[in-house]
């Protein structure tokens, strides 16, 4: 396949970026999108050009490192798929592909297509965990959890923190991410003790990081590579309002 790439190039946080056009010739349709970028970068390097920086790690769709807004859609045109699992056979010979970084004030571009997602870490540090005292391992099944609740918790817990929800949201809101991290504990008995504090603290950090607010368009749900439903946002809204109006932790 022969493709034309329009890639966002930016030297660092402070320097304004711009699009540059690259030819990507003789691309195998069996390559992943990142492998295609590897090839293009290698050729650029051989020609003495600076290769383009982009995030990647496991390339198995589970780590949440890869990003890229491809032709206006975070993680590209295939639903429920990370960029690393997207294959070039999803494109046509001669296509022009526009590649942009996640765009959000809370995710500053570090270089080219690499953005700083540490805002997510700071939100997690505010309460995306269960505080426990260490001790002996509890007996299996000592805490009964229904299959339904376990499934709801697990669906939320499948969030890999890639930030595609922020990239897709027209308000650059991280509500789907925060809600997934809140919901995964809201459905489990271990999460109840800190339920009110968790949602208040994590949302306070969300707002402080400069993410936008949710307008319930559902764009985040549509691009989430783990297909996390916006029902977690409704659940978090419910928890947040309850915690605000009446909530004290049990």
């Amino acid at each position, binding site marked *: 396949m022969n493709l034309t790439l329009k890639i966002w190039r930016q030297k660092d946080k402070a320097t304004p970026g711009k699009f540059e056009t690259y030819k990507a010739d003789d691309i195998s349709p069996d390559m992943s999108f990142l492998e295609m970028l590897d090839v293009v970068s290698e050729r650029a390097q051989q020609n003495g050009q600076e290769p383009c920086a982009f995030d990647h790690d496991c390339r198995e769709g589970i780590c949440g490192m890869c990003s890229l807004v491809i*032709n206006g859609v975070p993680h590209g045109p295939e639903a429920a798929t990370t960029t690393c699992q997207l294959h070039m056979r999803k494109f046509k010979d001669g296509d022009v592909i526009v590649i942009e970084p996640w765009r959000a*004030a809370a995710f500053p571009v570090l270089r080219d297509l690499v953005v700083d997602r540490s805002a997510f870490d700071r939100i997690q540090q505010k309460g995306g965990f269960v505080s426990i005292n260490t001790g002996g391992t509890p007996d299996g099944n000592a805490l009964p959890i229904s299959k339904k609740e376990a499934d709801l918790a697990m669906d939320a817990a499948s969030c890999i923190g890639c930030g595609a929800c922020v990239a897709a949201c027209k308000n650059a809101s991280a509500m789907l991410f925060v809600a997934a991290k809140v919901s995964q504990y809201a459905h489990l008995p271990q999460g109840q003790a800190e339920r009110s504090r968790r949602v208040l603290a994590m949302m306070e950090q969300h707002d402080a990081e400069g993410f936008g607010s949710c307008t319930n368009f559902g764009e985040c749900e549509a691009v989430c590579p783990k297909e996390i439903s916006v029902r977690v946002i409704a659940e978090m809204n419910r928890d947040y309002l309850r915690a605000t109006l009446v909530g004290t932790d049990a």
Partner: protein
Amino acid sequence: MEDGISPPAPGVGKVVSRVHGSTIGQKAVMAVSGILLIAFSFGHMVGHLQMFLGAEKYNAYAHFLQSMGPIKWAIRFGLLGLAGLHIFSAAQLTMRNNAARPIAYANNKWLAASLGAKTMRVSGGIVLFFILYHLLHFTVLLVGTAGFSGENTFPLSQTRLLNGVAVPVFVDNVFQRMVVSFQNPALALGYVAGVGLLSLHLSHGIQSALQTLGALNSTYRPFFKKVGPALAGLLFAGFAVVPLAVLAHVIDLPK
């Protein structure tokens, strides 16, 4: 947790600061005020459908509303307050949301958003001007009043005793004002366009408000994604049918 946030003591000041100072809180204000304004709109619509019952019934209804005194003023100021809160929260959140993405995408695709969702700000802004015109037209009687008959000109069939003599009760002829106004095609079609935009606004607004208040789950959300726009359509039909019926002379001044 070392976040320094203690479990909230449910004090009024703390609740207000937390609602005002958070995105979810501001959205809840939008949702609650929106739902109350929608509830008023449905009552308003049902009231105006009485145009089809004729001048006597409609003017008696209008007279009943006007005779509520302090309650009328409480509702009026309540509605203004709700609209104010709705617009204030919208402005706050919009400024925040614009700041959250300083550099726009060169290429932006919509995957899920409905037309109503994408046009919320535009439809909301135009509906604001529509409502202002509507109030100046029918409540304050400042604009579009050509052909309006004066106050207390319609005799109800009910009578009252004046010095022992039964005389008719004269009330505002609101029916006549509505008919005269909507016989003007510009006013009638402008009204239809206004309620059309309101309906477009609510086609996203109803389900969005419920989602914001946490009232939806995996079962209710698909349901309200259909019911929300259906209710918005019902509101449009109920409002738009009156001016259209006047234009078609289905509703007309008594001969």
